[in-house]
């Protein structure tokens, strides 16, 4: 327990480091936000072409395409960014040459991984939530205020799932030094079967069956139910019950995969090689 507390106390150091690093890349930070804002505007125009009758209703509320797609875009983007950041966190340290300096300290490699991903795990969802809020206020998204807290809880259960996937991907990346392509394909598949951009009902029947168990789809649909339909806690309860065990399994599998990959690197003596 003492060891766990001691390791947990190191996480704020990683957060501070990554905040300082982000602030040193101000242009990239602003550019990133602008790109997402432009994407939001694009969907705002596309929304004018889509008949609301082609979309599902949530708790009896007929959704407009802009509200529908923005929830999907935000959650799909958060998932993609987190998966990429978590899986590449250690690789990034390897590339810039700091990984060995971190691992010669009395810090557990899992703490190094978690610490290196912690900032993004916190910052990316917050940034996207703020963006959603700004778009809602400026472009007129019609969301229910009482759906915000249930949505946050649902997404809080979903983020560890992405972290677990990221850890598995990190193990692959540490082992093969490549993996961005595979991660991209995996995210595209998850995105396609998530209903982020179009209703799941448009998918072939067998893909729909898969999509119903897709945690990304569960997170998106649950959030739409809460934010658009104003269903409060009733719509997110089922999602939470499904996501909690899935996230637990994903994190466990991720930790095992990542530790196995690191152990292999220690045995081979190739940890510092990039």
């Amino acid at each position, binding site marked *: 327990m003492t060891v766990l507390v001691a390791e947990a106390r190191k996480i*704020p150091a990683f957060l501070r*480091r990554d905040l300082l690093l982000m602030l040193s890349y101000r242009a990239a930070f602003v550019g990133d936000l602008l790109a997402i804002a432009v994407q939001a505007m694009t969907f705002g125009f596309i929304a004018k072409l889509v008949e609301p009758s082609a979309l599902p209703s949530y708790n009896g509320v007929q959704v407009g395409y802009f509200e529908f797609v923005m929830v999907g875009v935000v959650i799909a983007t958060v998932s993609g960014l987190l998966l990429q950041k978590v899986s590449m966190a250690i690789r990034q340290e390897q590339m*810039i*040459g700091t990984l060995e300096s971190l691992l*010669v300290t009395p810090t557990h490699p899992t703490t190094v991984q978690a610490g290196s991903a912690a900032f993004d795990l916190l910052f990316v969802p917050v940034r996207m939530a703020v963006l959603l809020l700004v778009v809602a206020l400026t472009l007129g998204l019609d969301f229910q205020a009482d759906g915000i807290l249930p949505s946050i809880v649902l997404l809080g259960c979903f983020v560890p799932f992405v972290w677990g996937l990221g850890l598995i991907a990190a193990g692959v990346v540490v082992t093969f030094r490549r993996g961005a392509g595979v991660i991209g394909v995996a995210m595209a598949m998850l995105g396609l079967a998530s209903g982020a951009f179009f209703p799941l009902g448009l998918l072939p029947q067998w893909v729909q069956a898969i999509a119903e168990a897709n945690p990304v789809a569960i997170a998106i649909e649950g959030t739409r139910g809460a934010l658009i339909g104003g269903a409060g806690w009733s719509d997110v309860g089922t999602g939470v019950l499904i996501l909690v065990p899935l996230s637990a399994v994903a994190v466990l599998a991720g930790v095992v995969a990542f530790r196995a990959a690191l152990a292999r690197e220690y045995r081979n003596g190739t940890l510092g090689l990039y």
Partner: protein
Amino acid sequence: MNGSNTGPGSTHPATLATVDGEARPAHGALPAIEVDELRRSFGAVEALRGVSLEVRGGDIHAVLGPNGAGKTTLMRILCGLVDPSAGSAYVMDRRTGGPPSTRKSIGLVPSGDRSFYLRLSGFDNLVFFGRINGLRHRAARVRAAEVLEAVSLTDAGRRPVSTYSHGMQKRLAFGRALLHDPAVLLVDEATHDLDPAAAAQVRALTTERAQSGTAVLWATQRIEELAGFAERVTVLDRGVVCFEGTVAALAAEGGGDRHVVGLGPRTTTDLAAMSAALSGIGKIQPASDAGHVLLTLAPGVSLGAALSALTAAGAEVTSCRDERPPIERAFLAVTAARAA
């Protein structure tokens, strides 16, 4: 010592149980670093072939060897970055490669210069590394400031590391290794690409640490820096120990103090007469350069005395220079002996 029945992180089999990560032999007691028959292969390449050495607290122990000798592999095993293929390595009584707590006593100065976050200041880098070495935030800030001062980087401390010269980055790496006041300092080729002044400063800092009781393992290929700096030396060549002993003993392998003496046209004597004149104080041999002889001084004899004897015997001495330093000759001798 046979550590084959002990796992990583376990205490040294020859000692009583120690508190996790807290064991620290008193100065001059058990070795701070103990390596026994260490082997490591990378595929078909044997980087280390049965290396053994010991370093005690307060000692600077050099590991001398050319590129590819296995110095860095040895360092990486000691700090737990690479598992050995066979043999054992203990640092402060704890087998390397164990849980993170086994690394509490180790400070590493790596050979490369890509080990910092270049966009952060030197101070912020040190605060970060201090914290993941277990210091609380306030303590890490205080310690970072102290260390910056110790390595003469206080003025540059708030600048991004990307603006530092190579020597400054090396000093910062040295400072980082001292953040948690380690009992063992592993220094991997810290001076190989530094200018003489910067190299001297890093050696001075190392000497200071050793004087405070830290055990230092200093990997280098710079032979000339050993004299007056390290107490003991292990010479490695292609993973094999060619020599282990004091630096003075290594120098003795080189055959004493030798000088190449230039003779002018007014020399009226020959080698035999000069040899006779040097009886008891040195010996003279032909040198590879025409018009030169090789003068080897007997222990304790000054160069001036030998040159005076040569002049008195009829030699016109026009120049005199050191042959290779004795440690360099010794290094070449011991590695050549192994090759033969």
